[in-house]
């Protein structure tokens, strides 16, 4: 049984570290902010999660393991929130996503939004094509 825990936590730790590195490389190579957020949040949730669970296994069933899982729960809870707030702030700041093919506004057919939206949303310029959920 102990051997199994050793192997499992070893795998989790190295895997988690690997995912973190993948996320970091993504952070550097991605072209624009939005894809970078995508890469960064992967490491926050998966990479950190695996490392923390690996450590919790190592610590054995005591208070430290509980604390580690609490840190994991806090991280899982707050990373998406801060990621969301970041992207919302960036979008309202007017940062555009870099699409691979430059679209010119005329020839792109923007599907008419269904009527249920509040008037103020549609009053916001046509170029904001995608749906802006509040």
């Amino acid at each position: 049984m102990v051997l199994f825990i050793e192997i499992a936590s070893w795998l989790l730790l190295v895997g988690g570290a690997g995912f973190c590195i993948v996320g970091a490389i993504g952070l550097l190579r991605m072209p624009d902010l939005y894809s970078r957020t995508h890469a960064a949040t992967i490491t926050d949730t998966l990479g950190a999660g695996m490392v923390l669970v690996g450590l919790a296994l190592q610590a054995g069933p005591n208070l430290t393991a509980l604390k580690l899982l609490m840190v994991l729960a806090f991280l899982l809870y707050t990373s998406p929130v801060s990621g969301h707030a970041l992207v919302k702030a960036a979008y309202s700041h007017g940062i555009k996503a870099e699409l691979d093919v430059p679209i010119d506004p005329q020839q792109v057919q923007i599907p008419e939004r269904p009527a249920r939206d509040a008037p103020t949303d549609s009053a916001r310029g046509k170029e904001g094509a995608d749906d802006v959920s509040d």
Partner: protein
Amino acid sequence: MTFPIEAIVFLFLLATALAVTHLRDLFAAAMVFGVFSLLSAGLFTLMDAVDVAFTEAAVGAGISTVLILSTLALTDPREHQQPVRFAPVAVVLLVGAALVYGTLDMPYYGDPTAPIHKHVAPEYIEGAMTDFGIPNIVTNVLASYRGYDTLGETTVVLTATVGVMLLLGGLGGARHRGDAEVVEAAGDEEPTPMDRVQVARVSTTVLAPLIMLFGLYVQFHGDFGPGGGFQAGVIFASALILHGIVFGLSSLKRVVSPRFLEIGLAAGVLIYAGTGVASLFRDGTFLDYAVLDHHSAQHGRHLGILLVEAGVGITVTCAMVLIFFFFAGRRAAKSEEPGDRDRRVA
């Protein structure tokens, strides 16, 4: 075995410090400064200074970044281009050379035979075990052996808050309307755009009580593990500040009014000094907790340390929230420019 990690962390520290100096965009500099504080807290953990790491993370990375940002919200975030001036470089090189010259006769890093480990430290370590029975030696020395230092420290927090209240008490500079109490005036503005963001609001309502609970845990766990009055105070305050950031000052004012905070600020220091005076009346010297309990000195010391840490926790909590009030309140006053009024309503 932790040497290679410390070396790499030092590299990061050097990089971030240089970045803070050279980044002309002040927002970016503030962010990198937050990273620098968090990294230095990490370094302290590697150097076995757990309580210092705790405080540096909570105070350095948390509160000072928030304060710098709230000042930047008022000022223009671009720094002027500046040629490198050589007088400061000369001064800095001179001071640095003097310091390095001074370290030549110092014992090596981590050398157990250094004079500081031989003279006073051993008494502190086994003193904590024998006549105090408190596992966390740092909290023990902080509150009992050098309790007077910590009283001075709490008074420093009180002084800084009184200073900020005096300087930022009035509503804006001469240009602004009347001298109505800034915090009341800032309170009645309509909800900030932030709290229309559903996600941030929901997450804070869930998180704030948990953070406060964690603050209480740190306050009373201070004797056994890393923690204590200061750290607990800052964590408690960050829960309230988080609420203030997301829900705006008006709701934070309803949760805890500035008047109450001012009384709490003074009460903390009075509790601390009061414990000291109590031991005066029982003919022990000032801040001598042993006399607080007749039959067992150890119990008296436990009681003394508990009271003292509680006093520190209350003062630091009220101080941090008050300072945030006056900085954030100031920001609302600033954006009350006539030009903004219509835009804000739209």
